[in-house]
């Protein structure tokens, strides 16, 4: 399993001055892998400064593990080189696809939950873990559509990928809530369907209610229903590193750090609850 890192936040460009010059820190930082591949200048300087005294995790958005395109070997080499340089606590990406014919949609598109998809993803996770020289974490994505061909639930699919490929899971609590609302499934059933020993990290974020659906926007504080689901997740999975994502309309660093402190407080209160 991976170490418990506490309650972190995503490292974003807007906060670079406060992080680099004022030395402000969370328990740990997650960085978007692609923003740091083959770069120098301020991003690299901030990453090195943060890594000098805090754990860092590499979180990718372009692995496209579920795509039928061949794996991008150059990309994997670059990720491996960055991981070797930064020595992150772990490397994660999403259980989704985004490329077709080498054309990158830069989106986290949902998989059809079929045996064919499962076999495809499992074989690619094994290849990626081999290339990167480490186990990876895969994250559940928010989704706005489901495929007629899907034969099993999302949580069964995710669990089976983790079991067969022997990888770990990054459980995005906000994504569970968003997808549960959009597709009408029970978020509690989702959590109960995920094996306890596979979950190595939580994501927390805000979303927008557009009336017809929830959109995973990462542009607002974590809303109460997601905090409630987070408490359920802590009850089931125990003490797991959490990470607050805030990617748009980014507020001052203190506000994001306050969300991480809220996660710490909720975790503490749940873990102190008397066993039922």
């Amino acid at each position, binding site marked *: 399993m991976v170490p418990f890192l506490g309650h972190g936040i995503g490292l974003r460009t807007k906060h670079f001055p406060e992080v680099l010059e004022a030395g402000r820190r969370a328990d740990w930082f997650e960085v978007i892998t692609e923003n740091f591949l083959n770069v120098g*200048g301020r991003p690299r300087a901030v990453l090195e400064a943060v890594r000098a005294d805090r754990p860092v995790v590499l979180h990718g958005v372009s692995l496209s593990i579920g795509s039928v395109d061949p794996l991008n070997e150059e990309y994997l080499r670059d990720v491996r080189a960055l991981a070797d340089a930064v020595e992150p606590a772990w490397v994660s990406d999403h259980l989704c696809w985004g490329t077709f014919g080498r054309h990158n*949609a830069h989106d986290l598109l949902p998989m059809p939950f079929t045996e064919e998809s499962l076999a495809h993803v499992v074989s690619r996770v094994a290849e990626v873990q081999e290339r990167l020289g480490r186990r990876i974490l895969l994250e559940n994505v928010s989704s706005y559509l*489901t495929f007629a061909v899907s034969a099993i639930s999302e949580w069964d699919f995710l669990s089976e990928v983790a079991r067969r490929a022997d990888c770990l899971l990054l459980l995005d609590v906000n994504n569970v809530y968003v997808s549960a609302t959009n597709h009408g499934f029970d978020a509690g059933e989702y959590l109960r369907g995920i094996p306890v020993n596979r979950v190595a990290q939580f994501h927390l974020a805000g979303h927008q209610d557009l009336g017809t659906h929830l959109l995973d926007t990462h542009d607002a504080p974590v809303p109460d229903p997601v905090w409630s689901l987070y408490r359920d997740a802590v009850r089931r999975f125990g003490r797991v590193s959490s990470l607050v994502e805030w990617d748009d309309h980014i507020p001052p660093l203190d506000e994001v750090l306050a969300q991480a402190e809220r996660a710490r407080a909720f975790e503490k209160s749940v873990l102190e609850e008397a066993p039922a």
Partner: protein
Amino acid sequence: MNLSELQGLLHGRITGSVPGRDDELREQVLPRPPLDSLERVEIYARMYLFRLVDAVAEDVPHTARILGHDGFVEAVRDYLREHPSRSPDIGQVGQHFGAWLRSREGIRSDLPDLAMLERARSEVRTAADAPAAGAEALQSLPPEGLPGARFLFCPSLRILRLQHDVRALWDALEAEGEAPPPAPGPTTVVVWRQELKVFHTGLSEAEAAALMVAREDGSLEDVCATFAHEPEPARAAFKTVLSWFADGWVAAVTSQRA
């Protein structure tokens, strides 16, 4: 429909590369009130366009401001048809936008050059680090090695050959002021980084020629030859080469060909 066919169908619709196929999409994507199958796919199509519009705008904020919101979105939509993203890094999607703008009608004549300058500044900001060499690197060579000395430049150095001098335009937009009229005429602009700060400056024709020769593995002797028509060739060459070191453009000097 197998996994490959399904991904091709959805990807084509979302990115606009293969429009239509409505009946197949209705068959493959489940409706769920209040949204039907195509409306669910459309959520992704809208996000695709606006995510990439944001990515290009991050590179060229002043160009985007001049085009206006609708004009910029329309321009990026057309650009993406010819230059779909091939990189895992969304930050690379706008790398051809300035050059592509040259073929666009009905825009300010200097807008492609402004976009190229903005993109270069964006690239330089995050280009790979390399320690800059001082002029002593040149002085350390034996006298007989000087004519054949060659320069290795820092990876953050960019040389732009523009059709307009857009420096005053960039300054005005940076200060949130009024855009001056276009200033036509070939201009060479160099963009570079010192520590974490990005700079750009214009070069005279002689300076530009010297720098291009040096970038293409020309020797110090070749560089000096580009100043042959100057009133004081040796002095001009010496001054120019020293400025490369002073501005931190040179990473190393070698007596070997690249």
